[in-house]
């Protein structure tokens, strides 16, 4: 696996969001919660099958990490995954510093980096130029931050991060394909399903 942050983005292996999301979900054996960020990220999560432990964001760009942090603090015995795109994470890079400071052992951040705002016409993000999200996360205090070199490396990283105390961050360079479908648009229902899925009754 590639833990070097010196490798330029253009030289990393290009993977596919839906394929990687399927590989992630296949490794969630302990009802881990997944907070899917706005847009293609949660659309592809939806298309991997609607786990009751998935929360799908239809707005509030950039906030998957702090939502996941709130869940992780509330349920320290449950693994929590924040699934974000590069555009969303760039909007709230500050949340990485908060995660670095709080250091929740049960939180894993996964970034699908296609270096563009795919859904609005593939305009390039800052990662298309020089920003390196793994280097930023390490600088923010998330020492266990890695680029996935390829699909097998992604799977190994996911398994390791779910088994060992975090916080962790995994970034993967992906292609600019759109998601394979779209999430149903009923935010209150999405919230209720997720809360039942992680055994919360109000």
């Amino acid at each position: 696996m590639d833990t070097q942050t010196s490798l330029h983005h253009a030289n990393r292996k290009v993977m596919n969001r839906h394929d990687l999301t399927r590989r992630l979900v296949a490794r969630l054996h302990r009802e881990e919660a997944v907070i899917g960020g706005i847009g293609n990220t949660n659309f592809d999560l939806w298309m991997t099958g609607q786990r009751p432990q998935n929360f799908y964001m239809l707005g509030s760009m950039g906030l998957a990490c702090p939502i996941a942090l709130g869940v992780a603090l509330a349920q320290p015995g449950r693994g929590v995954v924040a699934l974000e795109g590069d555009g969303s994470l760039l909007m709230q890079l500050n949340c990485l510093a908060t995660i670095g400071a709080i250091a929740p052992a049960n939180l894993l951040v996964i970034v699908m980096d296609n270096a563009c705002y795919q859904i609005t016409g593939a305009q390039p993000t800052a990662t298309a130029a020089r920003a390196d999200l793994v280097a930023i996360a390490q600088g923010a205090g998330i020492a266990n931050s890695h680029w996935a070199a390829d699909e097998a490396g992604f799977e190994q990283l996911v398994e390791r991060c779910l088994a060992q105390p975090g916080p962790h961050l995994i970034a993967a360079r992906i292609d600019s394909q759109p998601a394979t479908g779209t999430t149903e648009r009923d935010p209150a229902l999405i919230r209720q399903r997720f809360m039942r899925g992680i055994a919360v009754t109000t």
Partner: protein
Amino acid sequence: MHEPPPSWSLEVHAVLQRAGIRQAFYVPDAGLSQLIELLHADPAVATTVLTTEQEGVAMAAGAWLGGQRSVLLMQSSGVGNCVNMFSLLASCRFPLLAMVTMRGEWAEFNPWQVAMGMATPAVLAAMGITVLRVDAAAEAAPTVEAAAAAAFDCDQAVAVLLSQRMLGRKQWVTQ
């Protein structure tokens, strides 16, 4: 040298304990500093210092998703940072209990604080948040208690505004 906490901070902390608050998030303000110290010292509460107020709106949603009640503390200048993120509360019907210390009103000395201070109640109301204002220290605890009930028993987003008059004249540096 620390002065003894003003009684409203102690009373509000007791209200938050009774309401079952388990997470607290804040961008600091001098007027909230004693309540923040009480929350940090409370073993029942996980207290997080935020980088921006909108992060706290998301954490409050996450806490509720995970089965916990929370409180978000900020200064009125931070309300503007949250506006887009307040859409999360209305869309998913999340509760919110926020406490906002006011700037830009009673004996304000910094002109840059005035615009956001004046806009704060209207901005909150525009995003569907119930606004309760406290002008006297004795009203702080009962108002927060009512706000917590509306938030957690009635799924409402509620902000309690602590007026600058109640908090006292703002100075750059606190002792």
